[in-house]
């Protein structure tokens, strides 16, 4: 009765069958069904094609097996194909979770919104910016009038006082950098090319744009409409994936994924680095990892990717990429994901639970020592310190020349609650003393709080040293093998497997120069890959 023409029967049985073993597959001593069947060459090709290429094989591909086998050459072909990129990308997407919220990336100070979304009447395609609207038109979502702008003798747009209390100017047509050769309707204040605001702040800086007195500059260069945001986000993901695919496609050591100082950029990202990153302060990007001067001749419309060297040298592969640091916005989150994905060492609370928060030991401010918390944090805190020179809630490299370990201004404000600390102190330095033990850290860069001398030395070298440790002691090879086993074998490995066959494979992976494709090949060519558990 269990025939393919009765799918409802199958589905019902699949969904309701208890975990019992068949007569052919009796339970073993642990109660698990341990019968296996070796799939034939056609099923093996289906399995391989779905796993490595992310799709079922075509009928033509399957018919080549009528008089053939799934031999080593075929596996090599599959690994060499562009379609294998799907496997690489999906595997690493599951490890790195490359998904960034648009507003965590495109600075709101330079965001141009269409009036259509804010019910302002008239042509909904007029673009406006909320900071300019607030400071020049007196209302956050007040766009300009839907009529051509009028300018005074100084070339400034003329605003008209409106009955709703706002003041509004007209629009102008501008050729935007993202669509050369076209003209779009932009409110005249937003289209301003003035170089500074009345305080002397440059209009290409966040101070200028947040003042609401600046426009977007020539061709709207330091602003972005929603189409630019929609272009940039996938580019950010693609940049991360290129960092992953590069060493794998090039048969270079897989470790480069986690250690390279280089990254690739195309026109849209280069434009972001040059003109939009300097406006991004929440999250804080501000200074991109590639100097804007190196990107001068890369127009937004050039979608070809080029390789650049990041500065400073402590950049460490995907772990300090924009996509990673904007997805994982705290040093702890960055270390946590790295430990989960690449070391297979998740941080888990002790099974006996945590002590009461009323317990005296729970008052300890240093999480590495606080009872219960220290179960994870004694390891997590030193690991997180490797990202200490990169801003949390952002990607900015905290250059010691600009952000010294100790700042006396910040210390002064920490010691005097009446004193205004300012953005830099509040954001990066210890200014809030919540426990007597913290007093010693007043005015110290937050990442240095509670750190030992040895941890500080490692912090200055970045996450790369964390990776180098794992390369040396074999944890990276071992975890990479286990992660690939999970993906290809669709189950957790047993402890015996981890310490047996998978350990041998990981040692070969390491000894062979961390060739990712070779490891995949070894796993799919193992007889075990063909052996299906029933």
């Amino acid at each position, binding site marked *: 009765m269990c025939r393919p023409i009765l799918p409802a029967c*199958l589905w019902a049985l*699949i969904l309701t069958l208890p975990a019992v073993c068949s007569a052919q597959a009796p339970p073993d001593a642990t109660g698990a069904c341990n019968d296996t069947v070796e799939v034939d060459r*056609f099923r093996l090709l289906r399995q391989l094609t779905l796993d490595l290429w992310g799709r079922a094989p075509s009928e033509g591909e399957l018919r080549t097996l009528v008089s053939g086998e799934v031999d080593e050459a075929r596996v090599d072909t599959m690994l060499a194909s562009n379609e294998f990129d799907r496997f690489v990308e999906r595997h690493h997407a599951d490890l790195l979770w490359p998904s960034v919220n648009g507003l965590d990336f495109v600075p709101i100070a330079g965001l141009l919104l269409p009036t259509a979304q804010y019910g302002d009447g008239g042509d909904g395609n007029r673009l406006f910016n909320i900071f300019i609207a607030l400071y020049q038109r007196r209302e956050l979502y007040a766009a300009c009038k839907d009529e051509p702008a009028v300018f005074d003798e100084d070339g400034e747009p003329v605003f008209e006082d409106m009955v709703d209390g706002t003041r509004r100017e007209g629009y102008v047509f501008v050729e935007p950098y993202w669509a050369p050769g076209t003209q779009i309707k932009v409110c005249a204040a937003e289209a301003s090319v003035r170089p500074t605001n009345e305080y002397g702040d440059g209009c290409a800086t966040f101070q200028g744009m947040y003042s609401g007195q600046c426009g977007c500059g020539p061709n709207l260069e330091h602003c972005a409409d929603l189409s630019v945001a929609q272009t940039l986000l996938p580019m950010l993901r693609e940049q991360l994936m290129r960092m992953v695919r590069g060493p794998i496609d090039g048969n270079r050591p897989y470790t480069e994924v986690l250690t390279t100082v280089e990254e690739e950029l195309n026109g849209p990202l280069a434009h972001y680095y040059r003109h939009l990153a300097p406006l991004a302060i929440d999250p804080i990007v501000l200074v991109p990892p590639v100097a804007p001067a190196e990107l001068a001749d890369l127009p937004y419309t050039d979608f070809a990717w080029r390789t650049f060297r990041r500065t400073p040298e402590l950049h460490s592969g995907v772990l300090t990429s924009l996509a990673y640091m904007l997805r994982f916005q705290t040093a702890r989150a960055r270390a946590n994901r790295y430990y989960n994905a690449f070391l297979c060492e998740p941080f888990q609370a002790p099974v006996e639970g945590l002590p009461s928060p009323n317990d005296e030991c729970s008052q300890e401010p240093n999480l590495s020592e606080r009872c219960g918390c220290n179960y994870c944090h004694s390891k997590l805190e030193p690991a997180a310190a490797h990202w200490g020179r990169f801003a949390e809630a952002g990607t900015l490299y905290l250059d010691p020349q600009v952000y010294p370990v100790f700042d006396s201004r910040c210390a002064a404000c920490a010691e005097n609650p009446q004193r205004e600390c300012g953005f830099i102190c509040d954001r990066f330095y210890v200014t809030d003393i919540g426990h007597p033990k913290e007093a010693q850290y007043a005015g110290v860069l937050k990442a240095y709080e509670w750190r030992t001398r040895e941890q500080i030395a490692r912090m200055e070298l970045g996450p790369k040293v964390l990776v180098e440790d794992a390369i040396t002691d074999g944890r990276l090879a071992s975890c990479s093998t286990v992660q690939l086993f999970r993906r290809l074998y669709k189950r957790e490995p047993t402890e015996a497997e981890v310490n047996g066959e998978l350990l041998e494979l990981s040692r070969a992976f390491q000894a062979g120069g961390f060739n990712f494709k070779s490891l995949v090949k070894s796993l799919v060519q193992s007889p075990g890959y063909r052996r299906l558990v029933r």
Partner: protein
Amino acid sequence: MNTTHHAAPLFLGLVTLLSCGEDRSGTKTERPEAEIDVGRQADRATADPTPDAALPVVVQSTLSRAPGRMTVDQLRRSIEIITGGLAWEEDFGDGPTDMLEVLAPTIGAPDYLLVTEENLEPSLIIAKFLHDASHRLCVRWVENESVAPPERRTLVRHAAAFESREEADIKAGLRALQLRFFARYLPEDGAEDGPISALYGLFLNASSTSTPGREAKDGWLAVCIAHMTDPELLLY
């Protein structure tokens, strides 16, 4: 948490079921267990770290693989391969919409912000949506096939006219579909036709109760839906 743990009992049932057609094709390859020489492999890989350089895996392997469910992305791409380019699309007035993309969050695909691991349980939700997909796709597929020349057909894979209801033609088409959908090879001599005998009955039933002129269309429509909603499509 790894979802495959939860899915294990469900898959167990499936695999037991998958094995209940004894005539399952495929030569069960009696391959001797390979031997792995990790040391040799490492030496070669060091010298030339390309996939070609990797030696065959050598262990007296005791590893085994569990059945897995296709991801939403694998399913979308596989449907296109199997149907020769069709996708499950609906038009709600704004042009064709890829339904698997729309339904991806419902079916459990990760967005890596709120959902970080794909739910790969063979759930009723995925069964329900495949059922919906089959009814939309198969109608289009059959209509396309009915006017396509035999060499261009992807559903009705016999060489005769589309309208043919000859047993030999229908069974030839069914064998091809078993390969196309499930990678189950059935020799053309019919020696292992067990898995398609019920499907042939289904074709006859659907075509014989059809309105005049639609016999072949309704027969193949029933066959298409049966294949598309078979759990074997999703599991591998």
